[in-house]
Structures are given as structure tokens and as C-alpha cells.
């Protein structure tokens, strides 16, 4: 499982694809940012399932 947290307090845990999709949606809709898959992969971390 993967995890990614935003400095604003939002976080997501899921498969790599789930974390990428959720993070891209959060970035665009809350921070008006375009996050590439590579951007997201570089920031996510592995967590225990």
C-alpha cells in the first residue's frame, strides 16, 4: 500500500494507482495545481497493508 500526505492535512492511502489518481484530483481541485504521475510517485511512501 502507498500513502501520500499534503501539507494542508489531507492524505490518501491505497494502491499506487489510487494514490496517484486521488492526489491529482486533490491537487487540481483544492490547490489549482497540475501534478504529474511522476510528481506524485516521487512523494508517496510505502505503508503496511
Amino acid at each position: 500500500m502507498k500513502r501520500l500526505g499534503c501539507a494542508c492535512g489531507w492524505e490518501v492511502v491505497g494502491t499506487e494507482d489510487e494514490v496517484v489518481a486521488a492526489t491529482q484530483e486533490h491537487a487540481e481541485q483544492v490547490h489549482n495545481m497540475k501534478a504529474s504521475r511522476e510528481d506524485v510517485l516521487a512523494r508517496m511512501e510505502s505503508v503496511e497493508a
Partner: protein
Amino acid sequence: MVGAARDPDVEGPVQAEIFVVWLDEEQKLELTGPCAAAPWYVELGATDHPVEVVERVARHALGKNPLLVHSTSWRHDHDAVILSFVVVIDAADVGAMQSVTIGRAALARSEATAAPKEIASAQVVEHGLRHLAWLVKDDPVVSHELSPAWKQALAGYVPEPFRNLG
């Protein structure tokens, strides 16, 4: 700026900083939002209208239409121009978001020919509410949108125009 966590990837030459405020049942002004009491940063592209972007992200993140969206100050910080916005929401729209009572703070004042060396987040909020106190007297739209209880809560703030903070 001190006292504010930054979204590490929010960058660009112009950024918006949003403070979501509401009035609780005890007539206390509260700070909330998707970042709880922390400032909420948003990127602004070259073709983005700042007010439109802030209204859109606020409506999406909060799930309801805000009562007011107003830019209150600007400053230079983190290699960007930061436009600060106060977004007023109804108490019924706070939902599960964390919230804290807004305390008072002394304003960050510029030197005669230079910006303040540090500006705390609380000082930006203080000025934002002072600007709302000015608007509620000067702007018929703002005066119409804010309830008598809101006007009473703002009565203790010295009215200030939009201005640069640093």
C-alpha cells in the same frame, strides 16, 4: 512569514492564500477550511483570474457556495506574490472541518522604506478582518451579505483598506 505550514508543491510567481472564516453561535469568529486553521495555498496561473479560482476551489472544497470571497492584502513571500483572501461561509457549512477561534493580533507594520521582516499568519488574518470591517461600511454588497451578528463581531476591528503587508 512565520507560523504557517506550506504546501510544498504550491509554487509559481502568484499564489492565493485563503482564510475561511465563520461566525459561531457564541458570536465568535472562527477559522476553518480544508487545512483547518492553517493557511490554504492555491496556485494561480498566468491566465487564471484570482477571484474566480479562489471561488471555485472554495466551493469545491467546502461543498457549498461561500457567502463572500474577498482579497484583503498582498505581500511578497517565498519568492512569490501572495494574494490573501478571506472567504466567509455560513455556520451550517462548516461540517466536519476543524475550526479554531480567531484571536487578536497586532498588525505587521512596514518600516518607512521597507516591508516588515516577518509577517505571522495571525497578522494576515487580523488585517483581513479589519478589511472586512471596512468593506461592511463601504461596500453595499458586503453589507448586504453579512448578518447583523457579523457586523457586531466586526465592530471591534479598526477598518482598514486593502494594502500590502510586506
